[in-house]
């Protein structure tokens, strides 16, 4: 009996830990995959799912722990080795050659290739796989001209041709339409029936229940639990994903609000890939109010923030700021009108990393008349202004003339927030403002946000940290696939309910679910 069990186990990962630059990404994780099983790896972005799988495929080495494949311990010498022994991964970014045909892509890099390749024979072989798993792809089509859904199928077919035993798919449905996604799931189920193991990385609850046999939930790099699909429900999984409710409370005094500082009407925004990221969003923000936007990252939050601040073009819809239509204003006009943005990407967007600290502090005020000296800039006065901000916000730095990228994460964020607070705007958009910061800097940032609120500023806070959302927000909106699945006063819903909304259920559906149990 026990021997049979050993044979059916494809992958066993034991006590896996991995850190990057001192940040633990995986802590003591255990993971097991059986033959013929579809195993979902569920967790928020940054929960450590992809890192764990990158260790299984030899892209990274674990700091601690052991990996067994079919009972044998693995020690990869190079990343390509995983595929050779039968572990294949389909990444979010495909690894196909765009200007070759489907057939050429499938043959390319196959270990059995000799100097001269017998193409008709390979074609016949590939056809058998296509028939077995019901793939419909034109082998002579140029990959770069195929729609993204088909390209993904080519990617999966490539793995099958390589005869992998373990197929890992990393958030495969993010780029697919609903029909394409359903079709993909059916194919994956067929593949599993032949005894191969499939690991399905996702953060979407609906997919988990559609496809998985077993589910492992990761949160902040730690394995929370592995459960059978039939023994669980969305509520339980949502709870595992988001964790416990916060104990931290912030003092939020009542302030007189100024209605409708920001009014967003029917807003549509595209992502960099040209996919709809913000889908018909409408909401208002008052002065003296913090609206916290929760959601798994990649659901349109950053695109929304970019669009509000003029850093991204909108497709349709209107943005009103203090009664005026600013939908088509360029960034500089919005800066002048009093829109402030603390972006999530501090190093690349928030500052020009290779420029000096002082230049980065003055980068939004240098145009003001007070810093002019005839035709020239008054560099002396600008430096004094920078000095003042460094002192006021207590930024510690190696030197004011040195590049900003030498600052620590916390001090860089202090620089950005100090720069923005000093400009005295009426709308502040914060994106992941405390991500990666230590406790002290986190406190500084949260207090700064509250201080701005108490001064009557309108604040949009996009965050993945529930302590922050619950501690600071007056109202909370939950964003899922470009829309709000709920928008309500802080306190109206529990963390568990928010977790369900984050995985796509509407406020009403959640209410029903909660009364059912």
């Amino acid at each position, binding site marked *: 009996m026990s021997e049979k069990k050993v044979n059916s186990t494809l992958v066993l990962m034991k006590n896996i830990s991995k850190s990057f630059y001192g940040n633990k990404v995986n802590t003591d994780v255990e993971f097991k995959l059986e033959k013929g099983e579809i195993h979902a790896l569920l967790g928020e972005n940054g929960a450590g799912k992809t890192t764990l799988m990158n260790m299984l495929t030899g892209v990274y080495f674990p700091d601690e722990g052991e990996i067994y494949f079919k009972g044998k311990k693995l020690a990869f010498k190079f990343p390509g080795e995983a595929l050779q022994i039968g572990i294949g991964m389909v990444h979010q970014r495909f690894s196909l050659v765009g200007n070759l045909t489907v057939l050429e892509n499938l043959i390319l890099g196959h270990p059995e290739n000799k100097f001269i390749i017998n193409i008709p024979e390979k074609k016949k072989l590939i056809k058998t796989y296509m028939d077995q798993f019901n793939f419909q792809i034109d082998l002579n089509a140029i990959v770069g001209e195929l729609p993204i859904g088909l390209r993904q199928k080519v990617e999966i077919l490539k793995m099958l041709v390589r005869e992998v035993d373990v197929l890992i798919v990393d958030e495969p449905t993010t780029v697919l339409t609903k029909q394409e996604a359903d079709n993909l799931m059916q194919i994956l189920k067929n593949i599993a029936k032949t005894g191969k193991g499939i690991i399905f990385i996702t953060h979407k609850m609906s997919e988990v229940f559609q496809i998985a046999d077993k589910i492992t939930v990761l949160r902040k790099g730690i394995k929370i639990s592995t459960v059978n699909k039939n023994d669980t429900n969305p509520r339980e999984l949502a709870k595992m994903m988001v964790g416990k409710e916060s104990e931290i409370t912030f003092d939020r005094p009542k302030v007189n609000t100024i209605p409708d500082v920001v009014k967003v009407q029917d807003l549509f925004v595209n992502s960099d890939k040209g996919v709809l990221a913000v889908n018909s969003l409408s909401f208002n923000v008052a002065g003296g109010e913090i609206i916290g936007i929760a959601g798994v990252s990649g659901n349109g939050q950053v695109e929304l923030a970019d669009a509000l601040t003029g850093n991204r073009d909108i497709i349709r819809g209107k943005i009103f700021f203090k009664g005026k239509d600013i939908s088509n204003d*360029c960034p500089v006009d919005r800066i002048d009108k009093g829109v402030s943005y603390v972006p999530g990407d501090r190093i*690349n967007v928030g500052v020009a990393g290779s420029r000096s600290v002082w230049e980065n502090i003055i980068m939004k005020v240098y145009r003001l008349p007070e810093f002019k000296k005839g035709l020239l*800039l008054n560099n002396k006065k600008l430096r004094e202004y920078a000095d003042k901000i460094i002192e006021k916000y207590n930024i510690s730095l190696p030197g004011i003339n040195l590049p900003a990228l030498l600052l620590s994460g916390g001090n860089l964020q202090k620089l950005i927030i100090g720069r923005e607070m000093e400009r005295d705007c009426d709308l502040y958009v914060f994106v992941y403002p405390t991500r990666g910061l230590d406790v002290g800097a986190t406190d500084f940032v949260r207090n700064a946000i509250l201080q701005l609120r108490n001064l009557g500023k309108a604040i949009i806070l996009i965050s993945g940290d529930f302590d922050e959302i619950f501690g600071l927000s007056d109202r909370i909106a939950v964003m899922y696939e470009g829309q709000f699945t709920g928008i309500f006063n802080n306190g109206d819903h529990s963390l568990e309910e928010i977790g369900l909304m984050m995985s796509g259920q509407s406020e009403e559906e959640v209410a029903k679910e909660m009364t059912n149990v």
Partner: protein
Amino acid sequence: MFKIKLEQKERVSKREDIIITLSAIVIALVLSGIFIAFNGVNPFVALWKVFTSALGSPYGISETLVKAIPLIFTGLAVGIALNSKLWNIGAEGQLFAGATLATAFVIYGPVLPKPLELTVLVTLGAIGGALWAAIPALLKIKFKMNEVISTLLLNYVAINIADYFLFGPWKGKDNFPYTPEFPTEAKLSRIGFGRVHSGLIIALVLVILLYILIYHTKAGFKLRMTGSSLKAAKYAGINIKKTMFMVFLLSGALAGLAGVCQITGIEYKLHQHISTGYGYTGIIVAWLARTNPFIIVIFAVFLSIMLKGADSLQIAMRLPAAVGTVMQALILFAILGSELFKTYNVKLIRGK
């Protein structure tokens, strides 16, 4: 066996930066010496000859300065673009475009009083270069075309357009491909030191003006921000497309000035050889000087010493003309290679 291991450096101090650059130049000179030795000439004698011929006599110095003038212009041209991380490989073509447009005025326009005539010519030279640079600028901004390719290819187009006029409508009386000599009104005055002409003064004034522009004006701030990070510049409210376009125009104008000063200051006519690759050598100058206009002057002079020295090696030591090009190439090669040591700590590790 040894393995080479690279570790990312946090930053390079000014001192380290200078030491690495100077070492690269020394290595390039040593390699040039080996190359010269293969040609049967004592490399020490040859290198000594390079420096004495360029700096050993008033004549040598003046000729070195004559070569430095176009290099300052093209160095500034490439350098100002590098400030906002744009690669203008097209200074050579812009030089010809400027020279051709100015020549057109000499040939078809009226002869004006000297100060006015020269002002018009210099302005046209700058406009010609700027217009030629506007093409890759628009291609980049509208169609995201890589400026390295477009500026480089447009060099050949510009040179061939000049050739068209030289072999066609502007052909000289003796049927050779050069224009008639310019009237005195269209000749820049000499400053009383060999063939050194007042183009040098224009160049040095521009050095100061550009320094002020880059470090003391709003436009310069935008330019520097754009060069550091496009996303951050956009976030700071800077119109990056407009900034890039203006930088290209300015860069082209500077290269165009190199051309017009060459034909009005030295050659007094347009022909096929008004530039001995000054546009390309300008890339080396700008890369060595790292975008600071004053340092561009220093390296422009340094490279003109090389050019002048190579000329005399050819004459006095019967070395092939290619020696000069090889030396330049080795310097650029060594400098580019030295970048590695600025961004990484290079370590040798013993092991298999």
